């Protein structure tokens, strides 16, 4: 067994901060030391052993079991290794993460991949608001890596995003790519209002949409072969992306013209 397994013992009443349970932070600790680590639970500090039963060995990474929807900061500042969560997770999943991979077999709450720098996050269900955004007060959102959401995303996905790729297979709500600086967001389903508002640069790719945004200018149809480069890269990560851009001769909108933005919204159909 090469994973450290943490199984949630009880239903949580308050929010639990798991920022210490990142593989690179506990790689040199023995199980006894890990059990006695003190983490924030509501406004108190308590030992991890109060919440989780711990088994296995930390070689490849950590597996969390149980409904962790009140557990925040999983994978905080993670640099390597792998975290697998079999259940839902709370806010700030993969916050400031700089390498490694997180797989959530469930949903995540708000601020998933906030200020995310590198690595890969896969959510098999949906995520909340502020996906790949900056955390409060910071200028830059996600600045590298890949985030894949197989379900839907909430409001403000890619808020202040700087680089990297966000893929949402389902729908995404309002303000996608708001204040986006660079990077790529791909939305497979429907979108909400005000997409690309105050966008400076970056690319938002939509499968099939009609856009009526006064701050976006239609810029014709052309062959955008860089999509094939993105596709080749994503195909290596997951079969999910096989032939994701079957047609690269597509429509383009530029904006936000109100802030002299050069962000682009590409529409595949």
């Amino acid at each position, binding site marked *: 067994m090469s994973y450290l397994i943490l199984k949630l013992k009880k239903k949580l009443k308050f929010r639990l901060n798991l920022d210490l349970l990142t593989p690179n932070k506990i790689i040199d600790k023995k199980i006894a030391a890990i059990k006695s680590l003190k983490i924030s639970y509501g406004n108190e500090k308590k030992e991890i052993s109060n919440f989780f039963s711990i088994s296995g060995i930390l070689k490849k990474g950590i597996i969390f079991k149980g409904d962790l929807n009140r557990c925040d900061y999983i994978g905080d500042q993670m640099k390597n290794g792998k975290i697998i969560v079999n259940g839902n997770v709370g806010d700030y999943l993969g916050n400031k993460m700089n390498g490694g991979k997180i797989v959530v077999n469930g949903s995540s709450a708000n601020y998933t991949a906030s200020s995310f720098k590198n690595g890969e996050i896969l959510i098999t269900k949906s995520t909340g608001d502020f996906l790949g955004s900056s955390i409060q007060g910071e200028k830059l959102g996600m600045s*590298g890596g890949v985030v894949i959401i197989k379900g839907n995303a909430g409001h403000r996905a890619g808020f202040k995003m700087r*680089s990297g790729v966000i893929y949402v297979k389902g729908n995404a709500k309002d303000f996608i790519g708001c204040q986006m600086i660079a990077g790529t967001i791909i939305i497979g389903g429907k979108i909400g209002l005000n997409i690309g508002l105050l966008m400076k640069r970056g690319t938002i790719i939509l499968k099939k949409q009609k856009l009526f945004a006064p701050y976006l200018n239609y810029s014709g149809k*052309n*062959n955008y*072969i*860089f999509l*094939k480069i993105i596709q*080749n890269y994503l195909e290596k990560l997951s079969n999910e992306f096989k032939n994701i851009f079957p047609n690269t001769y597509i429509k383009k909108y530029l904006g936000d013209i109100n802030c002299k933005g*050069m962000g682009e919204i590409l529409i595949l159909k």
Partner: protein
Amino acid sequence: MIINGIKIENTFAEAFPMKAVRLIITADSKYWLKQATNSMTGFATSVIACGCEAGIEKVVHYSKTPDGRLGVAVLLFAMNSEDLAKQVIRRVGQCILTTPTTACFSGIETDEKINLGNAIRFFGDGFQISKKINNKKFWRIPVMDGEFIIEDKTSIIAGIGGGNILIIGNSNCDVLKSGEAAVKEMKKVDNIILPFPGGIVRSGSKVGSKYKNLIASTNDAYCPTLKGITKTKLNKNAESVLEIVIDGINEKDISLAMKKGVSIICKKFNKGIQTISAGNYGGKLGPFHFHLRDIMK
């Protein structure tokens, strides 16, 4: 050593260290791919006056190019990194950027990098867009047919220039035909190019000249029309000599290409060809010595 009646001279090809870069050029069609790469590798036969030596290495299957289109790998060689960087920017800027539908990518990864799109992006006049994909940066430069995609940087590797064989025969026709067959075989080897037109050079050179401004001049010892007045290396029946020059990124593939070239000549052209030789400068110029008889063992 004699193979199928052809004498393999006990000599060696003398080659010298160079710097090399491999670029992958892609385009929508074979036609425009050919136009772009022929243009880029044109006037790049010898560093003596062209600034670099360049040629088409191989066709790259669409499944192995970054943008999923048919591609061609091009190798460029120069005497040092600075000269190579200048030539890469000039040739990509004037020959690939200008050709409809093309894109340009780095074809090799090392720690030593030079600018590629990072220099050419300024053509976009502020409208260029960068994309970072899998830790590689690409530039999308707006042009009149859409966008030109180019990778930000490309790697430099150590190369070897000046591997060669000399084909000595009874007539121009025999030597040329055997040379053409040898080139066809040698081009099947990866990691090498034959920088001269059609892979063959007729004006083999020696170092220096009676004219002080010239650093290279005709190799009179191998000129059949000068047999009567120079210290010739040709026998009385030798009436034509052609040279095939090989640049490569390692000794093994240059040796393999030489072996393939000589082998096909010995196999199919034993009636018209007398001798296979190689050009060298007494071992004083370059550290890489390709001994013909060792290669043909």
